């Protein structure tokens, strides 16, 4: 992903869905564009280092629209940066609940499980990412991140084999 200026501007919308049931979950008539704008603000706050505000934006979004998966990704990112890996995993799973083919959520799970040294579970999710990331939705940046986690996983496997031989 190229570096973007911190100012908020019109961005191409990616098709991350709100689930069909979400219209009933969207409290008080927030439109999709409002939810997306709030998410964009939260994301911008993260890029500018204001993690606390971004977290509060994300929590507010989840309160009003629990099926808006990008908000769960915001929380997952925040938790990852705080080193709260179980929270990262939880938030990523919530995003997947809404959007089962979400590459970003799957990669959060991969990284989260790797961080807690559960390479078996992380490796399983890595396999799910493999199928998706090489399709149309896989951006070059996501593919690179996926590749880095594959390398990490393979290195772990090598370490395991070396220990067995000792």
């Amino acid at each position: 992903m190229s570096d973007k200026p911190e100012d908020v501007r019109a961005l191409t919308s990616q098709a991350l869905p709100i689930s069909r049931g979400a219209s009933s979950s969207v409290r008080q008539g927030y439109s999709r564009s409002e939810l997306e704008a709030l998410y964009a603000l939260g994301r911008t706050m993260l890029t500018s280092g204001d993690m606390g505000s971004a977290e509060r934006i994300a929590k507010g979004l989840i309160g009003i629209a629990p099926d808006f998966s990008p908000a769960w990704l915001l929380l997952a990112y925040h938790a990852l940066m705080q080193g709260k890996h179980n929270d990262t995993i939880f938030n990523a799973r919530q995003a997947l609940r809404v959007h089962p083919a979400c590459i970003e959520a799957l990669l959060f799970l991969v990284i989260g499980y790797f961080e807690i040294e559960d390479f078996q579970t992380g490796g399983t999710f890595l396999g799910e990412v493999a199928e998706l990331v090489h399709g149309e939705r896989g951006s070059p940046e996501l593919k690179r991140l996926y590749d880095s986690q594959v390398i990490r996983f393979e290195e772990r496997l090598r370490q395991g084999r070396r220990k067995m031989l000792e």
Partner: protein
Amino acid sequence: MKNRIEKLLFHDESRLPLLTLLPEVGAVEDLSKLRVALSARLERVELQLGEISAGAQRARIADENDSRERSEREMLRIALNWISLQEGEG
């Protein structure tokens, strides 16, 4: 935290922003329009919170709604403050 992030990224110490995992969704094309919409929502939620606190009984369910609405209010305040700063710079 910086070392932890570095450890997360690559075995070869190259840099790859984890921000990639936050898709760029949506657009904020008109800050003033958004400000008006969010201000109206803030007004509504503050009215609701005022009604809850003035209520005679606080049931458990009311407490849960209260928590959600407080969270919503906080979100709206932060967003409006940020918009205000952006409009001030523009």
